[in-house]
């Protein structure tokens, strides 16, 4: 479970990433207070422990989104790298001049607005339901998106059953590891270098690791992945 300091202001979160994301959406400033280390730890543990990977499959991207929100709020907005100049398109100096004036105008408005400090609520805002202005069935029907360009049809593809299902890959991999004592490199067990084979072998490794049947080591990114079934032999 997550230590309480993750969410000093939001104790009601209780380890539900989706609920946390919704809160961050409602009040983006909440992202500032989050302790990302615990958040990432939490998600990794969830992924490791969940019986059904599908139930937690969307938590990692949602967490990544929350992290992005926080970094947008707390990291200084440095000059954007990769702002490549576009090819010359015959712009004159007018645009640059106008742009400088527009930025100046906008910044002066912003500075003036920042001089007002609002009242911090004592009791926490109670959620009050606001009715919809102009709620009307005709309006609803008329709101159906009018512009629907034809979507490019996706050509039908023949998908064949996998002749070598994951369960069998896992069995084969485990018995290979048991035959060879100690660490075995991932590249030794992949068989053919076909992408499909590598992906299949990798998925088998992930599932075996998930089931605590093997241990996995890697010294640094892109290094050989070492597999170890030691201590788990039947």
């Amino acid at each position, binding site marked *: 479970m997550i230590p309480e300091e993750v969410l000093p202001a939001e104790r009601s979160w209780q380890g539900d990433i989706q609920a946390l994301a919704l809160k961050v959406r409602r009040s983006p400033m909440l992202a500032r207070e989050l302790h990302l280390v615990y958040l990432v730890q939490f998600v990794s543990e969830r992924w490791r422990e969940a019986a059904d990977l599908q139930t937690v499959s*969307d938590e990692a991207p949602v967490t990544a989104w929350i992290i992005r929100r926080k970094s947008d709020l707390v990291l200084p907005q440095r000059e954007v790298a990769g702002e490549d100049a576009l090819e010359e398109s015959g712009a004159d100096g007018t645009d640059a001049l106008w742009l400088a004036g527009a930025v100046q105008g906008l910044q002066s408005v912003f500075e003036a607005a920042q001089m007002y400090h609002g009242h911090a609520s004592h009791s926490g805002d109670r959620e009050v339901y606001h009715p919809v*202005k102009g709620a009307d069935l005709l309006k609803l*029907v008329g709101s159906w998106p009018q512009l629907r360009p034809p979507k490019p049809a996706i050509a039908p593809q023949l998908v064949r059953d996998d002749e070598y299902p994951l369960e069998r890959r896992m069995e084969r991999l485990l018995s290979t590891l048991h035959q060879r004592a100690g660490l075995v490199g991932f590249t030794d067990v992949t068989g053919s270098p076909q992408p499909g084979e590598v992906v299949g072998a990798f998925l088998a490794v992930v599932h075996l690791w998930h089931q605590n049947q093997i241990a996995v080591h890697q010294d640094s990114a892109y290094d050989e992945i070492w597999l170890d079934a030691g201590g788990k032999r039947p």
Partner: protein
Amino acid sequence: MSGETDRRLEALLFAQTAPSSAEQIALWLGIEPDKVPEAIAQLSARLEQSGSALAVHMAGGGYLLSTSPDLDSFLAERLRLAAPEPLSAAAWEVLAVVAYRQPITRLEVEAVRQVNSERALDTLVNRELIGQVGRKEAPGRPILYGTTPQFLKEFGLNAIEQLPEVNFSSRT
């Protein structure tokens, strides 16, 4: 005590969410802690004389700016009244799609609208007009959205089947 200290004290208390101790106030204003009660008294007197709705209260060993007690019942009654708020054009579109095609995932809404609809969906969830009604048995188990009882009430319907029939496919 100058009028400026008085205004500063009011602004400081206004910006706080919890009672502020005399020590804290003294530090902010650059005065001795034993002068704080005097500053508070002066602020209280000015608020009362000017017919302000606000007053300084002692709470939890500190000072708190809050509304006068005589306004409590008025506020409790009136703050519950919520004015209708408009929906954006995008939110209306998404609401129409969800109402007629529910249960529906975000990607399916976006397939109809051809534009990112995340924020509009969030708005509608926050406005309690749509809600999560389940998860689709598809990769990633995406959230399924549907309309809420509040939606029916808002549009004067008893059941979702009462939505007017419309043949949307003929409108492209």
